């Protein structure tokens, strides 16, 4: 008896010991992160939601090194504010500190020499829209910059506005209200967008600024003014979430290209100064940002590496996407508040990763990788972080798709030229964009480029339109509808309404900037990442139109009926579900009232 008791007790002791051991083991097994966490402290960042998809991917990827980064995509303004307050270790912002804000807001006052900028990712501010024609989603909408500006300033309010129709000869635009969706929080996207508008269409912007009651502080602003008819949502995700809802038909909002990819929604092809409607693909953004003027005055940290984008807006390369820009990390260069050298070490390791390895993923996310000069400048900036463990990284080991041995931007050099049907004029491409690049939209027969032999699979975008293009291209690196799409598309009444405001449009034949870089770089080609539908062969330089569906074939039978709107049922406000709802209400009221009425009736009767 006693013995057994004893043995149970001993057993329980053993069990307890085993449990403790097991627990300790668990701790140990669970420990590796915490063991390395001795060298890496948890750091936090806040800011740009425009760049958040890229930053999130970096965060996830560095976790395997034991680096934990918290990132709150609450908008560039909030990121800069909280960086100044010292509540986060680094900020991500699409625009630099607003030392002299032009929109009447209070200036931000960072301590001089306490911070450094590094560009961390490039991308395009795209216009994601939700539009249907005859119950079919439109995926190939094109708009001129002027029309975009007028839409977001409330002067074009219907999708069938003649100006929009002129941009889209292949579509019968529906008589639907346009609902511009803008950012409600302080946002770098709003700042970039308004900066572009002020540069290109100052009259449209100033008029809007007056109407919105902001005058005279009509400079570019992080806080987009709203007027009646606009919807304001918080964050890129808020805009993308709103536009992609079923009820939001007719909505259009500005988000980073990656959000449109993620939501599987199309983006607007924007007209550039070369007269082509382009999409902010990683390649197009890379081409566009060749024209960005980066401040190289390393002695002034307040402006060093910041961007000046007028060159991008006015670039005459046919592949240019005017609203391309860089987004930045703002790094601390002094120890202050909760930021110490231990955190500096982690931040340094994280930013090294962001500048080097992370760049090879950015194209697949919808961003564009940084060019080599900015990566190298970034490495130098990282050295300023207190506590950083300086690495000497050979940039060629980063597998950045823009790198080539001869120093040119490979991604930009190999970017395919737009198709002939993307040129401003009477034709329109059926191909889808962004998140729905594999879903072509039927276009009117009159807007299709006449095709001689529609079956030819690899015929470069089949451009024998009579403008006698290709011929020059086939050299090797060049692109299909390339260099010399001579001006006059030779076709009818090109553009009844002169869509692009003051743009030199049709007469500029790209050519100049094409730089079909010779065979020198060809050895390095295979790194090219092409995430979107445009499956271009880097060797032959051919880009079959629309990878999934052979474009002309898909488009041909469609011939959209011009009586789009008449087909839809008249919704008078009544339908079965509403009738049912009413019935339920009546029944509910009846069930609640009936007993009472009956009771009263009976009780009145009873005495009599």
């Amino acid at each position, binding site marked *: 008896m006693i013995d057994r008791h004893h043995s149970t007790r001993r057993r329980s002791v053993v069990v307890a010991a085993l449990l403790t051991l097991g627990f300790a083991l668990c701790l140990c097994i669970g420990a590796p992160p915490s063991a390395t966490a001795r060298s890496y402290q948890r750091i936090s960042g806040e800011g740009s939601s425009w760049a958040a998809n890229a930053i999130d991917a970096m965060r996830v990827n560095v976790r395997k090194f034991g680096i934990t980064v918290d990132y709150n995509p609450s908008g560039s*303004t909030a990121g800069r504010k909280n960086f100044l307050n010292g509540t986060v270790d680094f900020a991500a912002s699409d625009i630099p500190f607003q030392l002299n804000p032009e929109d009447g807001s209070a200036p931000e006052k960072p301590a001089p020499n306490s911070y450094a900028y590094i560009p961390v990712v490039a991308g395009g501010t795209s216009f994601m829209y939700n539009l249907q024609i005859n119950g079919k989603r439109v995926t190939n909408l094109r708009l001129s910059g002027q029309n975009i500006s007028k839409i977001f300033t409330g002067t074009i309010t219907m999708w069938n506005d003649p100006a929009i129709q002129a941009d889209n000869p292949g579509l019968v635009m529906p008589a*639907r*209200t346009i609902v511009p969706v803008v950012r409600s929080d302080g946002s770098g996207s709003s700042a970039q967008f308004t900066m572009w508008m002020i540069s290109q269409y100052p009259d449209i912007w100033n008029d809007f600024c007056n109407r919105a009651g902001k005058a005279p502080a009509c400079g570019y602003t992080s806080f987009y003014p709203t007027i009646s008819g606009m*919807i304001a949502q918080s964050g890129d995700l808020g805009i993308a979430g*709103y536009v992609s809802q079923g009820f939001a038909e007719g909505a259009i909002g500005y988000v980073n290209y990656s959000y449109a990819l993620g939501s599987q929604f199309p983006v607007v092809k924007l007209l550039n100064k070369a007269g082509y409607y382009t999409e902010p693909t990683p390649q197009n953004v890379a081409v566009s940002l060749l024209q960005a003027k980066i401040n190289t005055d390393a002695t002034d940290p307040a402006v060093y590496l910041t961007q000046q984008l007028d060159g991008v807006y006015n670039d005459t390369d046919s592949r240019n996407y005017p609203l391309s820009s860089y987004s930045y990390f703002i790094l601390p260069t002094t120890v202050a508040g909760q930021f110490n050298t231990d955190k500096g070490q982690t931040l340094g390791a994280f930013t090294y990763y962001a500048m080097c390895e992370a760049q090879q993923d950015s194209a697949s996310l919808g961003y564009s990788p940084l060019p080599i000069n900015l990566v190298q400048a970034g490495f130098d900036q990282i050295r300023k972080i207190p506590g950083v463990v300086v690495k000497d990284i050979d940039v060629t080991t980063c597998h950045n798709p823009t790198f080539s041995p001869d120093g040119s931007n490979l991604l930009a050099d190999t970017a395919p030229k737009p198709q002939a049907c993307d040129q401003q004029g009477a034709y329109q491409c059926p191909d889808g964009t962004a998140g729905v690049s594999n879903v072509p939209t039927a276009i009117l027969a009159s807007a299709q480029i006449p095709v001689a032999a529609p079956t030819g699979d690899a015929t470069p975008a089949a451009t024998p339109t009579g403008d006698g293009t290709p011929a020059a291209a086939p050299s090797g690196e060049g692109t299909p509808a390339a260099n010399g799409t001579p001006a006059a598309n030779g076709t009818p009444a090109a553009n009844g309404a002169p869509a692009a405001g003051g743009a030199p449009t049709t007469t500029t034949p790209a050519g100049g900037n094409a730089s079909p870089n010779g065979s020198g770089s060809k050895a390095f080609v295979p790194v090219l990442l092409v995430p979107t539908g445009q499956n271009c062969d880097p060797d032959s330089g051919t880009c079959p139109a629309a990878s999934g569906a052979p474009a002309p074939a898909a488009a041909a039978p469609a011939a959209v009926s011009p009586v789009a709107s008449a087909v839809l049922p*008249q919704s008078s406000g009544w339908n079965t579900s509403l009738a049912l709802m009413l019935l339920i209400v009546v029944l509910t009221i009846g069930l609640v009232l009936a007993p009472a009425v009956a009771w009263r009736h009976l009780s009145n009767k009873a005495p009599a």
Partner: protein
Amino acid sequence: MTTTIDVAPDVHDATPQPRGLQVRRSRGDRAFFGGVSFSGLVVLSIMVAVGLFLAIQAAQALRVTGIWSFLVTAEWETDRGKFGISAVLLGTVLIAAVAVAVAFPISLGTALFITEVAPNWLRSALIALVDLMAAVPSVVYGLWGLFLLEGQIVGLSRWINTWFGWIPLFKVAGADPNSPLASATVYTASIFIAGVVVAMMVMPIQCVVMREVFSQVPVGEREGAFALGSTRWGMIRVVALPFGRGGIIGGSMLGLGRALGETIAVLLILSPSFNINFHILQAGGNSVSYLIASRYNETGGVGLSALFAAGLALFAVTLVVNSTASWFVARSRSGASSEA
């Protein structure tokens, strides 16, 4: 403890004299009394401190505009010194009103059903469910509202607008019920939808309070009503509702208090605007808590002070609402009318 005991009047004495009561507190009593009054005072002083803190922080902004201008301006340009709370406060009140209007019938019905009608097995399940609803975080309701409800409820908004649009409250600028191509977006991101989502959060709170009160209806009176031949509805009407009046009002007011301060769900749904908009079905609106949550990160100086001023206004409104509630509850003590 000081308690007065109703001494039954002496039948033999024509002029009854109540027996004088002498209160002698033991040490334990005194310690208890001290402790209780201390915590009471602490709560009160915290409230006063919060109010004072808000007032001090708000002073800078109020000095810029002046109190009256702050109350009547419908704009929020803090950097230019033109800001005011009127549109924001109106939005707050409208959201809360919609929430309570939607939640009140549901919670009253649920509470009555649980206490008076439901069989036992269902009762405990329903109680658990309602408690669960109260425990769901508000961001979940917000996401639910944004991604599910908003798309579904647009039809109801359109219907109300179509048939009751002649009432100014339900008017929607830019809505054309006769056009098949009219965008449904004018009905989204509205005060109404935000209010309905907030109602889902308010409902369990109201329901719990009402259920508690109804469950305390004296069994004797309930049985008495049945014994006199009353139907179940008759019993509810004559016994339960009058007995629970205080709890019903108190619960609703408690819900209203929560609805006034709800932030994240409103943040996710509403499209902020600073115009005075009392068309509840129309896109755009604002609320104080939304304003604070969205702008807090992005401003400093006068802007921050203005947010404190907005907080102060919300604080005052909530105080008024809750005081009114307690006044109501105190006036109509539970069971008072049925005990008479």
